[in-house]
């Protein structure tokens, strides 16, 4: 049998031009399946790692998925703000240990701006309860003296090439129309956070009073005509925040989560809601999961098509190889050898294609990983294939082996019918 596999390899090498195309298409299908699955698992991973140590996320009443999307991922917008008085009332609940208000809506060159309290930097946790760390500089002070201070995430710093002391201006909303720039009140970067692999990396953090200050001469999303309040003048106003977008809540005991959640939902002063991050992330993933399953299905179809190509190529070449099969029969090969030869060829091609696909996936993730991280904030790991990827690979190979039996069987039938004199 070993000799027969050698013959299959030599015979295949003889037709390497056609077969290399088949190998390439199987490799591409494998690449598609594996890299898609790798992205899927890593996205899921970074999703579930994006917030931890926070027991509840609170916001105006909306969908829990939407609340998570804007509060944690800074995607989309809030339908309503919540009053700061409500936040203070909730923080007075006996089970609440800490509460960190979040104010969203502005941006800086495509990066979300988050107004919050200095406590954010100690309370916010990601991954396995890891706290935020400063790679350089310090957190903003949050008082009047440090009003125009900003702390930027690692990705924002790297992408924009910012260092400490960089002067930046914020833009109202994520829009790009003229006049939406808070150009009169520039900020200074005082801190750069270490990389976390979460949306924090792509966020510009400022204090809540600073958010008030830059909007002091604005109303309804536009500067008030004829009113100009300069950056120094603004310090004299009452900059205590009146409204925020959402809040992160830490509890003294996780067991109280449902009680506090109900308390927030029943809060009489305003329509509020709170979600458990883990539950909402699962829900969010279920929404994403539908598209994800469809894409996986499509990749599977691509794999099937390329394996059908393998069968077509080997079958098409079979007629020209009937003389070869007759020669093999004459020197003592049985029909079963002929079956093995053809099926072995298909198996070799499948294995080669799958092997190249794994190599290409590794190369792609290794080369494109950093770019994907900087553009989408998804950290792709160049680690050993996960269980699901092994299964996909096994699926490709098993289907390839099964598909190879088709030309093998055809050759078996032909060599029985032809004997030593193929009627070609």
């Amino acid at each position, binding site marked *: 049998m070993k000799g027969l596999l050698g013959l299959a390899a030599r015979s295949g090498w003889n037709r390497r031009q056609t077969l290399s195309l088949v190998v390439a298409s199987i490799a591409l299908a494998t690449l598609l399946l594996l890299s898609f699955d790798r992205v899927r698992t890593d996205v899921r991973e970074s999703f579930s790692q994006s917030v931890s140590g926070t027991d509840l996320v609170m916001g105006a009443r909306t969908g829990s998925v939407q609340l998570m999307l804007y509060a944690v991922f800074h995607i989309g917008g809030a339908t309503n703000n919540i009053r700061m008085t409500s936040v203070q009332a909730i923080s007075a609940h006996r089970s609440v240990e800490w509460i960190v208000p979040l104010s969203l809506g502005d941006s800086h060159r495509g990066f979300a701006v988050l107004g919050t309290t200095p406590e954010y930097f100690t309370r916010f946790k990601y991954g396995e309860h890891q706290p935020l760390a400063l790679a350089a500089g310090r957190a903003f002070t949050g008082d009047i003296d440090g009003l125009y201070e900003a702390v930027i995430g690692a990705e924002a710093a790297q992408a924009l090439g910012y260092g400490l002391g960089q002067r930046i201006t914020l833009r109202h909303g994520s829009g790009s129309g003229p006049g939406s720039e808070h150009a009169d009140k520039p900020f200074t970067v005082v801190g750069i956070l270490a990389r976390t692999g979460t949306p924090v990396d792509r966020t510009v953090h400022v204090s809540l009073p600073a958010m008030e200050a830059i909007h002091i001469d604005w109303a309804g999303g536009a500067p008030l005509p004829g009113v100009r309040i300069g950056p120094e003048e603004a310090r004299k106003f009452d900059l205590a925040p009146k409204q925020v977008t959402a809040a992160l809540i830490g509890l003294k005991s996780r067991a109280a989560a449902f009680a506090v959640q109900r308390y927030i939902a029943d809060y009489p002063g305003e329509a509020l809601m709170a979600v458990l991050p883990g539950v909402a992330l699962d829900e969010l993933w279920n929404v994403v999961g539908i598209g994800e399953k469809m894409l996986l299905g499509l990749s599977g179809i691509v794999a099937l098509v390329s394996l059908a190509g393998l069968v077509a190529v080997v079958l098409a070449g079979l007629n020209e190889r009937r003389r070869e099969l007759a020669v093999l029969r004459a020197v003592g090969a049985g029909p079963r050898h002929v079956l093995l030869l053809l099926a072995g060829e298909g198996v070799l091609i499948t294995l080669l294609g799958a092997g190249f696909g794994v190599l290409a996936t590794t190369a792609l993730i290794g080369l494109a990983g950093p770019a994907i991280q900087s553009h989408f904030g998804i950290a792709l790991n160049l680690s050993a294939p996960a269980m699901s990827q092994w299964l996909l690979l096994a699926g490709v190979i098993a289907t390839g082996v099964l598909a190879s039996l088709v030309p093998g069987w055809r050759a078996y039938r032909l060599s029985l019918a032809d004997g*030593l004199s193929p009627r070609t």
Partner: protein
Amino acid sequence: MIEIHDLRFAWPGAQSDCLAIDELTIASGERVFLHGPSGGGKSTLLGLLAGVLVPRQGRVSLQGRDWSSLSGAHRDAHRADHVGYIFQQFNLLPYLDATDNVLLPCRFSGKRRARAASEGGSPRAAARSLLERVGLEPDLRARPASMLSVGQQQRVAAARALIGHPEVVIADEPTSALDAPLRDAFMDLLLGQCAAAGSTLVFVSHDERLAARFDRVVPLAAINRPAAREVQP
């Protein structure tokens, strides 16, 4: 040695037998010239002798074994052990070089591999000396079969049929693609090598000019009476 008794063979789906041979015996070491017109069932008979086909009825045995009594896998092994086969043309696998083509039977038969090894030291050495004896230039041994001329290919095919001393060599019009001088040279080497090895040679051709060089001439038309089936009740 080959024995045929009461052979009847029809291709699947055919209305009548294409071969009906009552009796044919070819002794060990005999060199037999079998001739008949094209389409007269010559290749079919060779397929039956080589055990690739089995008769509908009757007995075809080679080296004392009835092909019909053997299972498919055993027929293949018996053929690999005892039969060297030469085709009209396209004898070689294009992706193997001349030496590897000669060594092909050794891949399928341990007996012939062992005999080749005992003769030449190793199967490869035996193949080399056979290629030398059939007159293939040494620098052509490693050349892919597809780059050899037709005459060279037939010589390699003869070497392959002879490696490991099979008891029977069957040749199916091996000279029909060769011109006269090449044909004569090929006949010399085939007859000479079979005689040297003591192999039985069954040589089929429609070219009766070659008949004189054989021990025995069998016209297929004289032994094959397929019409006989129709007169049976």
